[in-house]
């Protein structure tokens, strides 16, 4: 049998180390947490401005239910308070996990810009979805956007990133979802 001391001393030391460690972590967290939250907030704000450049201000998150899922969207206004468009955050399954896309749509249902809020694709392939040159392919598109792989540039479709068709399709799916949500918002607006 082990004596009491043999068990108690190691247990106490381990407990003390855990206690000190947790205390240190809590301290660091209290310093960094507000900054991390502020950064996330800033990032979201600047994403909204990026995808809907015409808007001066955004009226806060409105919720919308569609197809059994909850979505939050923002209404962008110009300086006189007139509505210039909406931003939607939608997601789709990419190659390396979920891709979260924010899409800006003007009042005519045309995409004004997209940005990836979350993207964990293969470096050098799917990660190119972040690039300006890819994201700008969506601008001005409306309705249901297709993907063209052969570089044919079919009507209302975007050229796929070479070697990353899955990523391109996922991003396009997310943007199409946003366009669908836009239709819902428009209908609700027309009815109400």
């Amino acid at each position: 049998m082990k004596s009491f001391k043999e068990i108690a001393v190691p247990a106490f030391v381990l407990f003390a180390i855990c206690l000190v460690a947790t205390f240190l972590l809590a301290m660091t967290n209290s310093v960094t947490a507000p900054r991390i939250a502020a950064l996330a907030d800033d990032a979201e704000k600047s994403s909204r401005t990026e995808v809907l450049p015409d808007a001066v201000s955004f009226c806060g998150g409105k919720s919308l239910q569609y197809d059994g899922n909850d979505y939050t969207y923002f209404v962008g206004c110009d300086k006189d308070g007139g509505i210039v468009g909406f931003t939607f955050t939608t997601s789709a399954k990419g190659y390396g996990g979920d891709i979260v896309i924010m899409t800006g749509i003007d009042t005519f249902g045309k995409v004004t810009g997209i940005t990836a809020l979350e993207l964990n694709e293969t470096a050098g392939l799917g990660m190119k979805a972040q690039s300006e040159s890819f994201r700008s392919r969506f601008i001005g598109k409306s309705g249901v956007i297709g993907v063209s792989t052969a570089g044919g540039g079919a009507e209302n479709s975007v050229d796929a990133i070479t070697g990353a068709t899955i990523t391109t399709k996922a991003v396009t799916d997310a943007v199409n979802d946003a366009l669908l949500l836009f239709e819902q918002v428009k209908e609700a607006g027309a009815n109400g």
Partner: protein
Amino acid sequence: MAEKKSLFNEFSKGLIAENPVLRLVLGTCPTLAVSTSMVNAIGMGLSASIVLVCSNIAISMLRRVIPSKVRIPAYIVVIASFVTIVQMLVKAFVPALDSALGVFLPLIVVNCIILGRAEAFAGKNSVAASAADGLGMGAGFTAALLCMATVREFLGNGTLFSGADSLLSLFGITSFTGIEIFSRLPEFLKIEPILIFILAPGGFFMFGILMALANKIAEGKGKPGAELHGCESCPMSGSCSLIKDGEADGIGARRSGAAATADMTGGGAQ
């Protein structure tokens, strides 16, 4: 003077003679995963070095207090705390690096280099020597990562230091975003980057080539090449019978494995 010299030795051994990646074959997962770009490599190297130095110092200070029975869990707690602190700081001050390193930032906890140094060095040596050891090992890790990342980014993406602004923004510099090389070549030399070098196969391939080079150099100096340790130098290897028996003989490994694990459970109850 002698003291200073030996401290320098503790530092410099980590760079080449006992380079954690190329000689001791530790920390292979982050080496392969984050060496897709030079900026990621530097970020990972620095984060791991900070954790390594801090945990080495803390463990060296606590080496007389921690009972040997619970030393592994105690080391893990110490290391995990520093990793979490570094993770929170990176999130708050270099958010782009946090998203680039992803899950590999918290995974520094299970990086064998850190637990390995705690067990092999910091638990037995003075604070100053442990700090020097941690600094050297960290520098060696960063250097090996950077070596691989330079080749992979250059060949696979055609750039150097791409995305440097994410690290440099810490010092208020945002104008330098890396050097484009392939896209600047004159028209008749135009080549596409060899994409596969930044994909997974390129990682394994480059690591293999780098390891072969390191072995060749070591051979020239009359030292044996790096052995396929896998996890031999990892601190859990004391209870890992596979390596003791060269993982060859299934039955033999099993028998002594049971004995080894019995030691482990007897001694290291949590």
